[in-house]
């Protein structure tokens, strides 16, 4: 936990207040569009229609909570995460961190606000500048955000944080290419934690690691959260994996959140056919059980995109009916704190008391 002395020194104008339990990060109606607008042509004057990677996403993250965004390629999950730190173009919508509205900030103000929302990339091999030593890498966020600190204070903080991720201070003088993937990811996490952010954005943090080391990093993240109360927003493609990590899960398909809710409930009884398909397709490492499961697979994506308005998942959906091709579904409540973007749950068809089907 940060000492009170350090907290007092920081106070730039835009730090969000963080009351336990309230929404810390709120995303409303976020659109991420690549290649649209005025970027191109001679002298940049000819606008182009772009590719909409994220469409109207609403998401909230509470203090100390872990939320996982799960989806396959093309779901927009990575674009969503990157948009939060300015690495993807936001075309519409709002992002609020505490009481600061990030989407309204520009230039130096938005950079200062980044202190509270740090990012850990998927690839531990290229996210650390190879020309910098570990000590310098960890020092950098402090120099950017906590300029008033003395060198001694920074050094102490760097030592503290590298030990908190289970690495010895002797690593500080070495270069990233001397370490394995798992260690580099820990270094990246340490770097993100130096400035004590409120939120840590993690883009598939363990996908590039061996199975035997994935657990190490996940355990470490859990440990850190217990100690510091940091909130996590994690992107992943593996539903069974996030079950062991997240409090709440949001499933994305083609730029939209199609289902969201508490992790255990969502995984035990998914309400959206796509979520169901993801679970059906995830192989269980148990041959007796896996081969007894029914072999239900999703048809492939067709290249002819259905004409909106309609449900984007309709062409592949096993539960498809007429309404799905005529309108786009809204997000309907399907339980306490649960939403599903599917007409099966529209007003009238009420799945609430169907409750969770009996387990085997």
């Amino acid at each position, binding site marked *: 936990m940060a000492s009170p002395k350090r907290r007092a020194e920081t106070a730039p104008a835009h730090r969000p207040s963080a009351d336990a339990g309230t929404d810390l990060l709120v995303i409303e109606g976020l659109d991420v569009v690549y290649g649209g607008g005025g970027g191109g042509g001679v002298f940049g004057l000819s606008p182009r229609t772009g590719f909409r990677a994220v469409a109207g996403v609403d998401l909230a993250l509470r203090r100390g909570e872990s939320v996982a965004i799960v989806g396959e390629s093309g779901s927009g999950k990575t674009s969503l995460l990157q948009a939060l730190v300015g690495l993807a173009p936001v075309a519409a919508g709002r992002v609020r961190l505490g009481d600061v509205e990030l989407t309204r900030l520009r230039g130096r103000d938005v950079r200062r606000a980044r202190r509270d929302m740090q990012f850990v990339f998927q690839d531990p091999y290229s996210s650390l500048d190879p020309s910098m030593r570990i000590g310098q890498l960890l020092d950098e966020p402090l120099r*950017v955000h906590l300029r008033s600190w003395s060198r001694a204070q920074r050094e102490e903080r760097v030592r503290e944080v590298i030990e908190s991720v289970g690495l010895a201070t002797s690593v500080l003088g*070495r*270069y990233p290419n001397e370490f*394995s993937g798992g260690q580099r990811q820990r270094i990246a996490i340490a770097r993100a934690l130096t400035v004590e952010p409120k939120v840590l954005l993690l883009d598939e943090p363990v996908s590039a690691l061996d199975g035997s080391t994935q657990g190490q990093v996940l355990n470490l993240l859990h440990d850190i959260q217990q100690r510091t109360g940091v909130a996590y927003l994690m992107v992943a493609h593996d539903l069974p994996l996030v079950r062991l990590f997240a409090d709440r899960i949001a499933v994305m398909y083609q730029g939209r959140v199609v289902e969201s809710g508490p992790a255990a409930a969502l995984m035990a009884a998914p309400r959206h056919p796509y979520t169901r398909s993801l679970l059906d397709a995830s192989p269980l490492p148990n041959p007796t059980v896996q081969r007894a499961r029914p072999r239900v697979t999703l048809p492939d994506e067709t290249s002819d995109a259905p004409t909106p308005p309609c449900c984007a998942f309709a062409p592949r959906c096993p539960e498809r009916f007429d309404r799905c091709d005529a309108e786009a579904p809204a997000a309907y409540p399907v339980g306490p704190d649960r939403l599903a973007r599917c007409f099966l749950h529209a007003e009238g068809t009420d799945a609430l008391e169907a409750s969770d089907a009996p387990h085997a």
Partner: protein
Amino acid sequence: MSQATGLPGPTAMPPPRRASPSRGFLRRAVTQPRVVASAAALLVLVLVAVVGPHVAPHDPLSGELSRAFQPPGDGYLLGGDDLGRDILSRLLLATRISLLAAFQAVLIAFAVGVPVGLLSGYFGGLLDSVLMKFNDAAMSFPALILAIVIVGILGPSLTNAMVAIGAVYAPRVVRVVRGSTLAAREELYVKSAQAMGCAHSRVILRHILPNILSPLIVQASIMMGLAILAEASLSFLGLGVKPPTPSWGQMLGRSFQYLYRDPFSVVLVGAVISVTVLCFNVFGDGIRDSVGREVPK
């Protein structure tokens, strides 16, 4: 099965992995014999440039007409030139002057080219389009002609000649820097710095520039060779250094007039120029080949 978080103890040694391209390329470079040889030769040259004029046996600027075209011997180790001056002493001074001048030119080229290339490559967009149009226009002039024009405007002197050469070569530097910056900009560690909240200046100076040094060093080395040749050309044409001050080009120019009388001097100065340029090129090549080559594991 194992401890709670499964983290290795503080004494666990992380395994060394493959070296990254930009780091340690110097270390790899020195394993190549041609790099070492050319670097040694260049070092000798620099030594000559620094110390040479102080140990010159005779005055390089004036001589005795009675010793004109004197063959080597009798105090003039390399003979006398058309005005009876000691060629060796002149060569020693010319080495310093030429190397210094070439260095000036390259410095100017980089001082202009690197910032422009960095800004253009990093920010892109309208700024990049405009700058590149100017750059392309400048590059479309034949280098020597442009240099001559600039010297013509500024007046013939060695400094002006070097400014001209620097200006002429700057667009080439811009191209190289911009290309490297465009590539470096997409690197994940650059995006990481941006996401962290680093200001653009910090990203450019701390993350992009140090990681594009290798192609720059190669370019600088090769450009030194080009600048030496350019200075020689300009001085040959009488647009560079003012006599009686010697430079390689100046000496080449003068002795060329008396080629039939004394071919030795022409060959001598020409050889010195050629070998120097060759050394720069070989050195640059060696550095370039060391970049990106990974220590195999």
